[in-house]
Each structure stands twice: as C-alpha cells, then as structure tokens.
C-alpha cells in the first residue's frame, strides 16, 4: 500500500503495531492526528486460516508456532536441529522463540546471542547466566496474538516496592502512580473488552487495602461479566482456604480475562483451550482489533515489512526514522526510506525497541545511542520468572477444557514478606500437563511405547518420596493398547492439575540487551542478551512456591508429580538453560512471556530512560510505550498495564501536539 503524506506532514510516527502502538495510533487517529505506523512484520492476514493451518501442522505447538517467519521445518532437520529451525541470520525479522531456549548456546538457532557461562561456575552461584525464558512476535498486531488474556491491575504497593519494602525501585510517584493510572486501567478494560466479576475483584482489593475509603467505584468495573470458572477452579476454591502463606489466608479469585463472555463484535469464548498460541475464533482480544480500528479512522496509515533501522537526531530532537523494506522473509532488502513527523513513538516491545535505540549511534554527540545519556537503555531486562508444579487430582476435574486459565490465587501478591522475598500470583492451569510435560503427547508415548518421561509408568518417586506409578498393578514401563490403554489414559488426563507461580523479578542493570556482532539478513545486529537471577529476594520465592505447591496438592488430596530438574551443566554441548540451585534445592524457571524493562521510566534522567509521561529525558519529541517502560515487573500480568500506559501516553502526546 502506498503511503500518502498529508499536506502538513505526519503528526506522529509509531514504530510497531502491537497493542501499545495500535492503541496510541487509534487514540491519535480518532483525535484527527495524522499517524504513520512503521511495522517490521507482515500485515494482519485476511483471516486466521493461514496462521491456524501452520499451528495445526506444527510438530511443537509453541506460542510462536502459528506465526511468520516459520520456525519449524524451515530448513532440513539435522541431529542438532531436529525441528528444522532457521538460522536467524538468514531471516529479515527473526525473533526469539521458546524452541531456542534449549539451543541457547547455538548461534545458528538462537536469535539472542549469549556468552557461555563462566567456566567452572557453581550451580548455585548468583552469577550463573541463563537463557531468557520468554518470546515475542514481529507481525502486525504484535505479541497479543499469543497472549493468555489475563487482564489484572497491578497493586499500589507494586509501585512503591522500594519505599515500602526496601526492594527494587519505585515507579515514579510510588503508589500515586496507581491512582493516576486507575482511570486508564478502566479505559484499557474497554479497549480489550475484559470479562470479569467486579465483586470478586473488589474482595481481593480489600485484602490489600487498595482503596482506603473502601469505595470501589466505576474505575473498578468491567465491560462484560466474568468468564465461567472451570471444575478445576472449583476444586481449588473449596480446598485452599485451609491454607496460609506467610500468614496470608489463601483463596481463589476468578481472573479478569480479555475474552468475550458475551457475544459482541467478536464471538463469545467457546473454550478452545488454545488462547496461547492462537485463539481460533478471536474470542480473545489481540492487537489486530485495535489496529483495525486505528486504520478505520482514515487518519492512520501503515507501512508493512518495513524494519526501523536508525533514529535520526537533529540536535536534541528526533528528526526522522530510517527503515529497510523487504518482500520475502529470506529475500534481499528491497529498499530504504526515512519517515518524519512532529512526534515519534517507539512501540516495538522490550527487545527490538532498545536494539533500535542502541543501533542509532551515529548521531553527533550521542555515541551510546538515542535516548541513552543515562546508559540505561537495554538494562534491567526482566520477566515474571515462573515456577511450575503439577499433580493428579483424586477425582476427575476434566482438564484440557475451557480457556487455558480462568482463575488464580492472588492473595500472595503483597504482604510484609516482601521485605524478604518476591511476591507471586498463582495461576491455575486448565490445560493439564500440556505446559509441564508437553502432554497429551508424553503420557501417550509413555504408555504406548513403555517409556517413563511423565513418571507415571516406572519406578519414580516424587520429591516427597511417594511412588508415582499410576497403576501399581501394572509392571513398570508397561506397553498398553486397546481398552487398557483407553482406561489408563482417560484416568490420567482427566485428573491433571497444573499451578504456575508468576514470581516478580527485580531490576538488575546487568540483565541487559546489547548489540552482538552477528547480524540478521538485513544486516542489522542481533541482540546480545545477558540474563541472571541474582537476587535472593527472587530465589526465596522459588523456595516458597515449591513448599506452597506441595501444601496445596496435599489439601486437594492430589498426588504431586512436579519433577526435580536434572543437574545443572554449565559447560559442554548441553549447557543447562534455565536451572539453578539454591539452598540445597534445584529449580527450573519458565518464562511467563512478559518481557519487561530495558527502557524504564524514572524520576531522574541519570538512572532512567523516560520520565513518567513516557517521554525521553533526552529528546522531548520521543515517547516509548510497552512493558519496556516498567521500572519493575510488579505482580500482574503486564498487558492491561501496557494498554493503560499506552492510553496515558496518547493523552500526553495529544497534549504536547496541542
């Protein structure tokens, strides 16, 4: 599509068309501003057919599996690349995927370039480096194509972690940040179309004393009633109330979700159990919804397959953004261009945004890159690091049905313990052991071929020394078929439980994105990533999560199957990507898909990239949006906060444009 430059030029150029960029574009377009989006990836396809087809036929159904560029079967399979993953240097818009985690040291597979762990490092050393656990998409509509839909507010104390608990950093203004954001949170629930039960949320907020007045007004409301809870949720709700964590009584809260509980412009959720990687019927919100609204205003134009490569400065002001175009993913670049506007917004998520800033280092006086006088660009990379626990319920709860998660235990998201260890929310999974063991495939293989990768079909003991063989009347490593196979599989699958702990992570300036010497097919540097979990504050939460899981499964009368990770290998061919030891125990962490930090807001130019208006300290006509602006991970899944902050940024930009 050709771009028509308006007579007065563009008011705003936005890099990236995910939820944050699209929200800013829609708000500005609605207000009559002329907007150009530069999107590195291909357009939203005419329907979901193509993405769904790729998903259905993918061997590994990872979060990224439906989306281009193709990540499986891209090249002929080999022994060290059995899924045929492409070399990132051969692609025009490569991105990090969870399939790359185990291959993190293989630079022909992993887009992120990692140094090898320090020789001889102890498995419990805080200096042990890891593969990053989370991924993102480079397509129109962005990473919300594969988000879960969880739409929680952060809590006031999440924004004042330093002043309240002496940990990490405060957000600008501390708890006031929450109250300023609250109307935008409400507006964000409208943008996304969140389904939730207000009363349940208010009961939760009361336990955290969120509103001193006790009055929870319109800003706490939701556009649609809550999504029906699963049979799984009901079991937990009945049983966990006997438990306390650090003196906090546990209870189950239905999760606010960005999917339709009622029909509207999008279909009502049908429970396809596939929010990640792809909702087949778009009952779940994704960024393409807002992108379409933005384009519908007639004031927003978009360049697809145009990868922003450099930010130009004129003095202290951004004066243009250079981009490179391509037609096919592995083909040559087809051209370059420069776009200009009165204001600029970077919305390319928390890896590509800092990469772009760092790549822009040829402007006189800015040798460390644009917006980087603080040296903070690319630093403080974070995720909600996850602890997974799984088990088998005593009675069927019928897993693998409904949205992937419909409830959680939110009670431990704040408390006095936060001076000692990180907070977490506990997500209750409805998808059995799909995440934990790659089921249904692994259990299936175990009982057809006589293997024991699930611990159900051998002589395994769990970490509490209970025998785990599912049917003690059968020998270990049984091979079943026919009715006996049917009965064993049925009894297992319908009882599978999974808990996930989203543990907050503190900003660590040495966890960072830099430019590597390797390049992608357009000649742009690939990210060099350094990632550790150094803080005992975070590691202590793993210890807590493990204990609490065992207590919860005991309360349910369930048998725990959480596997002890294999020993850490810090050298050789198979360097352990995400396992560490702590206090004599061994933990594997998982990514929550929440890429946070790398261009944070703050109260002073010396230690932050943006002010609280999400405006660059260095260049007043440059703004940034997305979870990269977060000073800390806080305890909620980030998307609702991303949306609220994008709405707030749009207001700031409108104000500045006059």
């Amino acid at each position, binding site marked *: 599509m050709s771009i028509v430059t308006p007579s007065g030029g563009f008011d705003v150029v936005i890099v990236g068309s995910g939820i944050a960029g699209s929200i800013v574009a829609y708000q500005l377009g609605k207000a009559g501003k002329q907007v150009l989006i530069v999107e590195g990836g291909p357009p939203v396809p005419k329907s979901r057919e193509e993405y*769904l*087809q790729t*998903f*259905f*036929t*993918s*061997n590994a*159904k990872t979060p990224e599996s439906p989306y281009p560029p193709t990540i499986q079967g891209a090249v002929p399979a080999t022994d060290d690349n*059995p899924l045929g993953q492409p070399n990132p240097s051969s692609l025009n818009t490569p991105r990090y995927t969870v399939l790359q985690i185990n291959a993190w040291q293989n630079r022909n597979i992993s887009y992120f370039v990692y140094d090898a762990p320090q020789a001889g490092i102890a498995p419990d050393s805080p200096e042990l480096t890891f593969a990053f656990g989370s991924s993102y998409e480079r397509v129109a509509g962005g990473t919300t194509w594969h988000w879960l839909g969880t739409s929680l507010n952060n809590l006031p104390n999440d924004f004042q972690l330093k002043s309240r608990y002496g940990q990490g950093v405060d957000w600008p203004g501390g708890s006031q940040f929450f109250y300023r954001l609250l109307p935008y949170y409400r507006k964000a629930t409208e943008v996304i179309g969140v389904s939730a039960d207000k009363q349940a949320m208010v009961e939760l907020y009361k336990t955290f004393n969120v509103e001193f007045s006790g009055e929870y007004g319109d800003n706490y409301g939701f556009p649609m009633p809550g999504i*029906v*809870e*699963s*049979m799984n949720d*009901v079991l937990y709700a009945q049983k966990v109330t006997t438990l306390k964590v650090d003196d906090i009584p546990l209870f189950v809260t239905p999760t606010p979700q960005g999917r339709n*509980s009622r029909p509207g412009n999008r279909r*009502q*959720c*049908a*429970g*396809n*159990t*596939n929010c990640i990687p*792809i909702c*087949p019927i778009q009952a779940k919100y994704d960024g393409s919804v807002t992108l379409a609204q933005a384009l519908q205003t007639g004031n927003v134009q978009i360049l697809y397959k145009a990868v922003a490569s450099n930010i130009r400065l004129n003095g202290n002001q951004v004066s243009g953004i250079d981009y490179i175009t391509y037609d096919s993913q592995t083909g040559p670049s087809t051209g370059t261009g420069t776009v200009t506007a009165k204001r600029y917004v970077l919305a390319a998520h928390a890896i590509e945004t800092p990469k772009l800033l760092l790549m822009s280092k040829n402007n006189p006086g800015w040798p460390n890159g644009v917006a980087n006088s603080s040296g903070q660009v690319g630093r403080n990379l974070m995720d909600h690091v996850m602890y997974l626990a799984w088990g088998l319920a005593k009675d*069927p709860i*019928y*897993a*693998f*049905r*409904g*949205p992937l998660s*419909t409830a959680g235990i939110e009670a431990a998201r704040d408390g006095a313990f936060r001076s000692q260890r990180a907070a977490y929310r506990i997500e209750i999974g*409805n*998808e*059995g052991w*799909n995440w934990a063991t790659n089921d*249904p*495939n*692994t259990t*299936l*293989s175990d009982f*057809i*071929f*006589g*293997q*024991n*990768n699930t611990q159900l079909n*051998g002589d395994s003991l769990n970490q509490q020394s209970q025998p785990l063989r599912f049917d003690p009347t059968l020998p270990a*490593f049984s*091979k079943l*078929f*026919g*009715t*006996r*196979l*049917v009965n064993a*599989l*049925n009894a297992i*699958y*319908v009882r599978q439980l999974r808990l996930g702990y989203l543990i907050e992570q503190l900003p660590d300036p040495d966890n960072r994105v830099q430019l590597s010497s390797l390049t992608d097919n357009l000649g742009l540097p690939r990210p060099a990533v350094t990632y550790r979990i150094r803080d005992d504050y975070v590691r202590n939460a793993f210890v807590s999560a493990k204990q609490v899981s065992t207590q919860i499964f005991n309360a349910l009368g369930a048998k725990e199957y959480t596997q002890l990770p294999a020993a850490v290998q810090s050298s050789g061919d198979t360097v352990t990507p995400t396992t560490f030891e702590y206090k004599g125990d061994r933990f594997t962490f998982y990514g929550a898909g929440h890429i946070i930090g790398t261009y944070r807001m703050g109260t002073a130019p010396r230690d932050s990239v943006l002010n609280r208006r999400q405006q660059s300290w260095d260049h007043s006509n440059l703004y940034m949006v997305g979870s990269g602006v977060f000073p800390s991970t806080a305890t909620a899944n980030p998307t609702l906060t991303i949306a609220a902050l994008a709405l707030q940024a749009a207001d700031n930009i409108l104000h500045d444009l006059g």
Partner: protein
Amino acid sequence: MDPMDTFISLSIGLTGFKRGALAPDDDTHDIKSLYLKTFVERVTQATVDDILLWYRLIDKQLLGNPPDREERVVTLLFADKPEYELPCRKLLFLWYAGAWPTVIDTPASTHGQTFSEVISADSYTQGLVWRVMQSHPMGSTTYNYGYWANPPPPLSAYLENPV
C-alpha cells in the same frame, strides 16, 4: 475382507475405540484412508500387507464372537509376530496423536522418548487422544461457552462416535 476392513479391525483392537468412531457410516473426514496411506508409506506396503494378512488368519481361528474380538486378535498377533508389534504401536500412536512417531532409546532412565510429525491439520484435530480425555483438540472445539464448568459426556460416547 478388503484391506480397509481389516485395517479398521486392527485399529479397533489397537485403539480400544469402536467402529463408529474410527470408520463411521457417513465418514465426512475419512481419516482412516489417510492413516492407511501413511502406514503404508512409513512401514512399506509389504509389511502392511503381511500384518493385515496375519490379522485375518488369526481372526479366522478365533472361536465364537467375543465382544473384545479385535483386542484378542491383536494380543495373539503380537505373540505370534513380535516383529510387527512396533509398527502396530506406531499406527496406534498415529490414531491417537494424528502424528507419526519416531522412538529413540535415550535417555535410558526413562526407556527412551518419542518425537512425532503431524500429518495434517485434519489428523491433528481427529486425534483420538482428545476423545480419550473426554475433551476436544486444543484449538478446535465444537462445544459452547461454559461447557468447562460441567462434566463432559461419558467416556463411552467418545469411544463410539465420530467428530
């Protein structure tokens, strides 16, 4: 018996599902044909022919008509022709996962592991593994909003009907 009839009988014995689920009268997906073709491609026509021949021979010798006839034949087939057990188990896996398996023997501690290759979108969604769990393929349900708050139909319904 034509080869498809024998193939279906063998598949009934292996999977524990009924004819109405594997080869319904009005077979809108006809996944059985894709699976027979895949079976032939992966283990050779000669092997498939011989497996089906042995199945028929054993079936003929079976006295009476027990309700678990097909499973009994498969038990005898594995005993008589142990070299056919692995290809038959791979076929079993195909019916359940809609994918062709590769079985490797490492790690020894778990007696190996299994990788697999999805045959088609239809084979994924037709996989019996979703039915044995009384659910639907992840990414493709025909149930309606809120079904997850209630128990599913009984297992027998899933063993007898197509989707």
